[in-house]
Every structure is written in C-alpha cells, then in structure tokens.
C-alpha cells in the first residue's frame, strides 16, 4: 500500500490563531477520506496543508512526490474566458502546448458533461456547472489525488448529485479522494474513512462504518447527532 501523506505532530498557526494542532495521520493510495467538523475546525487548513498551499508551522509532513495532486475549491475561480480555455489553462501551466491543451480540455469537458458548453464564458455558467468545470480542470491534470474543499456546499440538490456522481466515478477509477463536507449523507455515500476535527485537532479517524456506528469522542458524537437530527 503506497503511503501518499504521512503527517506527524503538524501544527499550523496564522499569527495567534492555531488552525491545526498536533495532527498525525497517514493516507494511503486509493482511500476516500472525508474530513468533517464544524466551521473553523481546520478542515480547509488541513486540505491546504496536504496540498502544499500552507506550510506546517511545527511537525513533519511527508508527501509522495510522485503522486500528482489537484485541488477543487468550494468557490472555484474561473477566468473571464471560455470554459474550454479555463480547463486548457491548467494543462498549459503544467507545460502542455496550448493546442494540445485545448484538445485535452474538450475531452475533459465531455467527461463531466459540459462538452456542449465548451465555448461559453465560464463566468456565465451556473454554480453547479462551474463546479463541474472545476472538476474537469482538475481531472484533466490526471491527478492521483484529488482534494476537494466542500465541493457541493453551495449547490442545489440536482447539481449536488451530479458532482457526487463524478466524485464516485473518479474514485472508482482509482483516484484517491480527500474531501471536506458538512453533508453526512454524502460522507456515508462516498467515504471509506472519516476524520473528525474540532478546534484544529483531529479527534477521530475511523472507517466510515465505525464512525457512524461505533462509539465516538463526545465532541464528535454531539456533532454527528446534531447534523443528523
């Protein structure tokens, strides 16, 4: 089993704010990890740290350098240009020639069901379409690991289903998924492992079934009950 991330005693401080404290985890290839917890619990910081956008203030983080990563943000930013050019941009930044990037971009858009909207201005797309476009931009890079920060948080139920279906397909194809979510139903459907964070601390790290059935630390128990009720 290939270890993709090995985190030991990692803390992340933003000035006086401790966004992550003493986090230790190991994530293997092929896992589908859900990060849950209330707002401000450190989910996004953990994702950004794993992705290399934030450096740990203390502790060590070992990352499999051979594994390609892509990240999907809660509010994906699209350039004021066509959907196709937005996807091609990601490839171009990785060194793919523009004409080839354009071809691959179209393929990626078709993969997420946006082929017909390839020429539309990305800013003119709906929230759900923009999220699928962001998925296409990430998928086009052929990542081994896809990190997703609340990918369906602001979407309507239909768009949520579409994005979830794509995530499931990507996972089926062997991609490692690490995503944060407030939607415990989604976590049940997609995750093989759940991590619960509170105030920057990793309080529970369990297989999905154990997380929802087994005994949990008190804080996690309260959170789960509150979210389900």
């Amino acid at each position, binding site marked *: 089993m290939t270890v993709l991330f090995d985190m030991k005693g990692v803390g992340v401080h933003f000035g006086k704010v401790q966004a992550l404290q003493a986090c230790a985890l190991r994530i293997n290839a092929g896992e589908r990890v859900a990060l849950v917890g209330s707002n401000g619990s450190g989910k996004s910081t953990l994702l*950004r740290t794993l*992705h290399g*956008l934030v450096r740990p203030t203390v502790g060590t983080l070992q990352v499999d350098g051979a594994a390609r990563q*892509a*990240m999907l*943000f809660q509010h*994906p*930013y699209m*350039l*004021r*240009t*066509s959907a*196709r*050019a937005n996807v*091609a*941009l*990601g490839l171009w*930044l*990785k*060194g793919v020639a*523009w*004409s080839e990037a*354009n071809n691959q971009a179209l393929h990626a858009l078709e993969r997420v069901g946006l082929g017909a909207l*390839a*020429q*539309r*201005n990305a*800013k*003119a797309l709906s929230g759900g379409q923009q999220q699928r476009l962001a998925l296409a*931009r990430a998928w086009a890079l052929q990542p081994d690991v896809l990190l997703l920060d609340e990918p369906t948080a602001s979407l309507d139920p239909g768009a949520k289903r579409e994005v979830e279906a794509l995530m499931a397909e990507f996972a089926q194809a062997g991609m490692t998924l690490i995503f944060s979510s407030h939607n415990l139903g989604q976590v049940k459907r997609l995750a093989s492992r759940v991590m619960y964070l509170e105030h920057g601390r990793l309080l529970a790290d369990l297989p999905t079934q154990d997380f929802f059935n087994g005994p949990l630390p008190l804080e996690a128990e309260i959170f789960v009950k509150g979210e389900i009720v």
Partner: protein
Amino acid sequence: MNTFSDSVSTAFSLIASLDPLLGSIVLRSLAVSALACLLASSAGLVLGAWLGVARFRGRGAVLTVLNTLLALPSVVVGLVIYLLLSRSGPLGFLGWLFSFKAMVLAQTVLVLPVVMALVRQTIEDADRLHGEQFQSLGAGKGMRSLLLLWDERYTLLTVLIAAFGRAISEVGAVMVVGGNIDGFTRVMTTAIALETSKGDLPLALALGLLLLAVVLLLNVLIALVRRWRERVDQDLPADASPLQARQPGIAP
C-alpha cells in the same frame, strides 16, 4: 455675468468653426497625454501587478512611498524633470528641455504612480481571493500576476481613465518643462492659464470646454468598449487563450 455668457458663446463659435489654433493645441495635448499614459501604463501595469503578488522585506515601505507619490504635485515633477533635463543636469545631453518629449516624460513620471498604485491594489485584492487556486494549478507569482491582470482587464480600464485624466488635466509639469511655447509646447492647460492671465477668456473657456469634452468622450468610449466586450465574452471563439504565449523569464 455678461462676460461669462459672452465668453461661452464665443467659445462655442470657436469650437464650431474648427479654429486651427484651438485644434493644434487640443491635438498636442491629446498626443502628449496619450503617449505619457501609454508609457506609464506599459510599465505601471506590470510593476503594479508584480507588487500585488510579491512579498518581500520592505514592501510596506515601498507601498507607503508609492501611495505618497499619488499626491505628488505636478509642479514638483516638472521641477525635478527640469533639473534633470537642464544643460547642467544628468540628462542635459538629450536636449529635451522645452520640447514635446520633455512634456511626455514629465507626465509619464506623474502618472506612473497612479497606475502602479491602483493596479497593485486591484491585483492584491484579486490574489487574496483567488491566488491560491492559481497556485494550486502550478502558477508562480509572476504568472499569477499576469493572469489576474488579464482577468481584471475591465476594472483596469478605469485605472487607465484615471491616469489619462490626471495627465491631461495637469498644468504644472508641462508648464515648467515645456515652457508653453506657441506652436510647439502649448497644450490645453497651459494655454488656459496663459489666455486667462491675458484676459482672453473666450479662448480659455473654449479650451476648458474641450478639455471636459475630451474626458467625457473617453469615458463614454470606454464604457461602450466594456459593454461590448462583456457581450462578446458570452460567445467566445474556441481557441481564446488567456495569454497567447508564455512570458519569458516568468516561471509557471
């Protein structure tokens, strides 16, 4: 009041008759300010965008100086450029003093901080919101600044209007380095100052009206361009590239 109304009617007749003297002054003004804006924008857009994403020791001090330069009196710019271009100055060998080039140089120096400071703020705000996403895609600081510059292009049109407005309406710098020489370095603002002091209010007022009209026309044109581009953006060509080629010297 009569003087004023007479002046206004004479001003309109001068404009309507396409007075050649008036025309040459207006064209010279536009040429000086447009060229100065072009030069200041070329440097200011790139430098301002870089400042928007760059983090280095002393950046705060640089920004304080830059923001202070926004209030730089044009006459001070004129004086500094005058000293640089005067025969005994370090750039005296150019022989530019009291010339068109000297006026362009002075207005470029005057407008550059305006472009840089406003672009820096725009790009810094955009980078704070979206920079991580470009970083995630593999864009370095240089590429991020260029992408954000390109994406904020409509907002930056307003910066260019502000820069042009600052250039075309200033009088101190062009008066000092241009010398207000009739037929050579006389522009709208220096002519207004001169004609007012001579008591030729109609010509001064006509120039003033034209100055306002030019800025108004420019604003209308840019608003139309913005609206047109936003409409065009709804139906982009297939190969619309955010940047047609990699910029040399900037790591992706």
